[in-house]
Each structure stands twice: as structure tokens, then as C-alpha cells.
């Protein structure tokens, strides 16, 4: 195999550097998740969003401007917010949009693409990222909740057990379906991690807790979230490092001259490399031989779906939804990049 050269030492450099870069951001996310768990009462979260569902989803797509997150940190936060009553459609939109529609990413994209139409590239990346995230949020809104959230998430929803059918200001249309939880309709996404890896805290218990108790609760929650998400970051970093060090990027070069294949090739690369959204623009800009639409697809698809996210999304969503999401995002973004973007020229 002339295109595959595995070397443990090179692999370990790449593996460690991805972890060193990702772990701090993931830790910030889990700390935030712990704070939300301990200090933000359930039901408060959804009152912050407008009651019109479409407006709420659209607003969720823009929240990254105020709360910038990269994709490692956003998963634990979203998982916590959904448990606190954030509508899943809004959660998914924030999850997809926040790593793209935020000021840090806008600046790094602009800086990376100087000399290659930085303004157009940056605005297209943010616009496409926002549009795709909102569309997917609106689609997920129409899917039964039991097919969206994995079983553990469903059981942890604020009114999953007690007030399952009570009226909610922002009612998921099919929330009532959550009542008949069956093992066939929902599956634990990746059963390799047993549910006890995280220990959940009762929301009800928090009202009686002192501030100190809440802080300890937040730290414990952050710690177990960290272990939970860290597990998937490790797997993702390891797979990405194999591709990063053992597979020659030049194997893609013959595809560069073909518009469609070039775009698909860079999107697959984005999936495999699992780069952080704050820095992927610099890598994308480096593919000089590839057309601009391919680079755009790389930068919109990568932050929404890559190997480590594929694993991490499994902590929130059903396995089926995670894979459907991956395929749908791939097709939609490829289509937009290949056929829509050239029209705008």
C-alpha cells in the first residue's frame, strides 16, 4: 500500500496536538454545561426564545454571534440545554450554526483567505452555515422526538416522567409520542459507554441546595460531562490522526480539476481530518489547486459534521438521526457549493 504509511511516533504527535488543541475548548463547554445544570432552572431556558417556533430556530442560528463556541465545546452545552427544556429544533440549529456563525471564525476565515476574495468567502461561509443550520432545525422540528433524541436524553427531559403531556409554551409537535418509549423506536446511540458514566442530578433537588452545594454540583457535572465527551474526542482524534499522518493528502490532487469531485473530495477530507472550526479556514485556503466552491464546502461541512462529531452527536441524538444528519448535510452542502455558489458569481 503505497498510500498508507503508519508510524506510531508521527501518529502520537498528531494525536496529542489535536487533543491539546481541543481539550481546553471541550473543557470550557463542559464547565458551562455544569454551570447551566446547577444554576439555570429548567423551563427558564425556553422562555428566553421567542414563542414563534420558526423565529426561535432562526434566532438560535445567530446565537453563536453572542456565545461563540467551537464544535468540541458546543455538544455538552447543547445536551444540557435540551435537558433544561430547550426545544430540540433550536438546539440542533445552535449546534450546527454556532461553530460557523461566530466572530472568531469570521475573522479567521477572512485572514486565511486574503488574496482569495476574503469578503465573499467569509460571508458565503457564514450565510451558508446559518441557512443550512436553520433548515435542518426546521426539519427536525417535524420529526417525532423519539426518533431525534436517544433514549437517555428522552428520559432526562424535564417533563419526561412527571409532566409528559402538560402544555408547554413551545410545544414540540410530537412530544406526546415521548410517552410511549419503546426500545425499538429509540436506541442508545453508542452503547459502548454505559449510561452511568455521567451521573445526572435531579433538577428538583437544586432548589434546596446552598450556593456551595451548587458549585460542587456544577463541578461534578462538568467532570462527568468531560469524561463522557472526552471519550469521543479521543476516538475522533485517533482516527483523524491516522488519516492525517498515514494517508498522503496528495492522493486527492488528481480530483482538484473536476468541479464536483474536488468538492466531494474536500468534504470527505473535512470529515476525516476533524479540524477545529476556528482554524480550518487556514487549511482550506491552502488547497490552492482546488476551486473556491470546494473550499467553501470544506469549511461549511467540516464544523457541522466530522468524525469526532459523529461520535459526540451520538451522546444526544439517536444513531439513525446522527447518520441521516451526516448524509443529508453532505448532500445539501455539496449541492449548494457546486451548483448554487457559481451562480452567485
Amino acid at each position, binding site marked *: 500500500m503505497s498510500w498508507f*504509511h503508519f508510524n506510531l511516533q508521527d501518529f502520537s504527535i498528531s494525536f496529542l496536538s489535536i487533543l491539546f*488543541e481541543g481539550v481546553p475548548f471541550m473543557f470550557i463547554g463542559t464547565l458551562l454545561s455544569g454551570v447551566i445544570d446547577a444554576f439555570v432552572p429548567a423551563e427558564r431556558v425556553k422562555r428566553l426564545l421567542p414563542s414563534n417556533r420558526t423565529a426561535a430556530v432562526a434566532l438560535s442560528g445567530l446565537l453563536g454571534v453572542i456565545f461563540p463556541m467551537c464544535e468540541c465545546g458546543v455538544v455538552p452545552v447543547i445536551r444540557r440545554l435540551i435537558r433544561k427544556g430547550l426545544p430540540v429544533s433550536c438546539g440542533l440549529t445552535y449546534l450546527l450554526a454556532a461553530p460557523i456563525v461566530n466572530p472568531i471564525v469570521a*475573522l479567521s476565515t477572512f485572514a486565511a483567505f486574503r488574496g482569495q476574495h476574503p469578503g465573499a468567502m467569509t460571508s458565503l461561509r457564514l450565510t451558508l452555515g446559518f441557512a443550512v443550520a436553520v433548515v435542518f432545525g426546521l426539519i427536525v422540528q417535524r420529526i417525532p422526538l423519539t426518533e431525534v433524541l436517544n433514549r*437517555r436524553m428522552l428520559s432526562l427531559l424535564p417533563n419526561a416522567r412527571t409532566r409528559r403531556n402538560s402544555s408547554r409554551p413551545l410545544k414540540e409537535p410530537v412530544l406526546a409520542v415521548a410517552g410511549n418509549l419503546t426500545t425499538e423506536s429509540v436506541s442508545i446511540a453508542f452503547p459502548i459507554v454505559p449510561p452511568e458514566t455521567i451521573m445526572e442530578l435531579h433538577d428538583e433537588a437544586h432548589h434546596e441546595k446552598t450556593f456551595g452545594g451548587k458549585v460542587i454540583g456544577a463541578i461534578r457535572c462538568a467532570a462527568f460531562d468531560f469524561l463522557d465527551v472526552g471519550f469521543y474526542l479521543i476516538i475522533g482524534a485517533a482516527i483523524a490522526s491516522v488519516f492525517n499522518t498515514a494517508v498522503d493528502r*496528495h492522493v486527492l490532487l488528481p480530483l482538484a480539476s473536476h468541479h464536483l469531485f474536488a468538492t466531494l473530495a474536500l468534504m470527505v477530507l473535512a470529515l476525516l481530518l476533524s479540524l477545529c472550526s476556528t482554524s480550518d479556514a487556514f487549511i482550506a485556503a491552502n488547497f490552492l489547486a482546488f476551486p473556491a466552491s470546494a473550499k467553501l464546502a470544506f469549511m461549511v461541512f467540516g464544523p457541522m459534521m466530522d468524525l469526532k462529531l459523529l461520535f459526540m452527536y451520538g451522546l444526544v441524538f439517536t444513531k439513525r438521526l446522527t447518520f441521516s444528519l451526516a448524509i443529508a448535510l453532505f448532500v445539501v452542502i455539496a449541492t449548494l457549493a457546486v451548483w448554487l455558489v457559481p451562480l452567485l458569481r
Partner: protein
Amino acid sequence: MKILRRALPSLTLLEWGAILSYFYFSGRLASFLHPMFRPLVLATGILLVITAICVGLFPEESCDHDHEGEGHAHGGLTPGSILAFFLLIVPLALAAKVSPDSYGAALIERRGLVQDIRSLPGMSSRSVARPAPSASPAPSLSLPAQTPALQQSIARTAAAQKQDSQQSIDKQLEQAAQQTMTEPGLPTQTSGNEDAAPGPSPGTYENPALQPNDSGNIPVQVTDLLYAAQEPFTRKDFEGKRVEIIGQYLTSKKGTSKQELKGNSFMLVRLVMVCCAADMIPAGVTIEATKKPAHLRPTSWLKVVGQVHYRPRPKGPSPDGIDYGDTPEPVIEAVSVANIAAPAEKYVY
């Protein structure tokens, strides 16, 4: 077993915190991460140790938990949770142990040596040879000699300030972008305006930051020479001048040119990092040497003193798919080549 089950989360966090802190304090982190991200690793390392202590001191009995779901934490170790903790603990420790501080020569060669500044993300803003469109060069240019100081100052800045620095870089670049950076993939980009800037009288350094050191050589980086290659204006600062340059020894030129290296020629390579070592891109210049140190292994660190010449490249696109156009290739005719110890900062940022 129950004690182990309770201690494992705490021990795992402790291990992660200890490894992050160790890499920061030992300086090994420099071989993995951009200076901007290093303080975050230290902060995370310390906070993880604190978290581990908290989790260890306040065992789960003191908290209220969700008890639903099959097999809760109190139920002991399951094969799944053992595997989860194994994966959380072992690969990190193993990688920390086996990881060297630099990639092997084979990987660097396979990734392909970049010999065009346009293929190096973010480089032009850092280059000492960055052009000054007006007569007054920007005062914030970084000198190779000052790089460690610059990096320390970057390292002190929190990630929140990343935005500001990028804004200032962007401002500087608006000027530079007008002059340079033609992109073959984008047909609308104008080209051929390289000569727009008025040249100074020959013999003076366009960039006052370029001053010979005590030995009469100008200290430069590989990336400076590559940057200057695309600019007739800046090239004058280097053409025929004696420079002092450090880098890693490589014999191959794969992926950049069909030309094979002849005689005692070799490539002097610096690894360029954008964020972390995973995105490493090697950049190199050709060294034409008459004599080399006897004991040279690929990726050995060298200090080369010699004269810079810009030579025309072969016409047509190179094997890496980039058309260099009229951009010449920097070559150093070496006067001396010496082994040196690996520097603390092995990457160019």
C-alpha cells in the same frame, strides 16, 4: 471494586490534568501547539486537577443523582465502563510517552515541501520581508531574532484577544493584498501588478528590520525567503546577500519539483504550524553546498550561512498542482553548514 469505580473518574481527570500541566511546564508543548493556545492548556490542566480533587473529595453519596436507567454508578464496573476508562486513560499516557518532539523525515517528505508562500497559510503577515507599499514600513513587523519574544508575548495573551490580533493583521493585510497574492484558481483576481510599488534605490534595505548581525549575515527564516520570491521589490533585500538561516536537513524534494537535487545540494526545511502540529506544513529552500557535516541524518538541525539567489523555475505547473508562474525559487549558495542543537521553538508560526 467499588472503591476503584469511585476513584476512576477522579484518577482519569487527574491524569489528564497532570499530562496537560507537564507538557506546559516541560516546554514540550511548544512542539505541539501554537503559542496562542498554550496558556489554555495550562489553565485546563490546573482546573482538571482541581476538578479531580473535588470529585474525589465529594463522593457521589453526597449528591442526588438520577437513578433511572439500567446499572447506575453504584452498580459497579461493567465491561463497557471499563473500556471507556481504559480509552480515556491509556492512549493519552501512551502517546505522551512515545511521542517524539518532531515528525519523522518520511512524513515531512510525503506531505511535500512547500516552496511557494501562497501555500503557507498566514505566513505573509508574519514575514520579516513583508512589503511596505508606502515608504514607511509597519512598525509591528516581527524579526526572526525577536521571534521568541514575540511568541512569549503572544503566549501571554488569552484566547479572547485572538480577535484583536487578527483584526490588526487584517488591517495590515488589506494593504498587502492589493499588491500581491494572485491565485490561479480564481480567474477574476488581477495579476501582474507586482511592479506597482515604486522601488527604492538599490543597495539599501527596503525593510530596516533587516540588519546584518555581528558576523555580517542577515538572520532570516525559510519563510522570509519564500515570501520575497514573489515580490521583485522585496527580493532585492535578499538577492546576493549573505544570510544566516536555520532549519532541518532533508535530501529529497518530492512533491515540489521534478528537478532532483544534485551533488551536495539538500533542502533546508522548517515546519510551519497554523494551530497545532496536526496541521503542519513543511516549507523548504534549496541549499547548494560544497561541503556538508559528516554526520547528517534527515531532520538534523543545521545552521547555514550563504548567499541568496533567486533562480527561475521550470515552466508549467509543478507536480503539486501549483503554477508558480514567474515566481523564482530561492537558492542559498552555502558558505558554511554546521550542526546545531534543536531549538526550543521547532515550528514557524
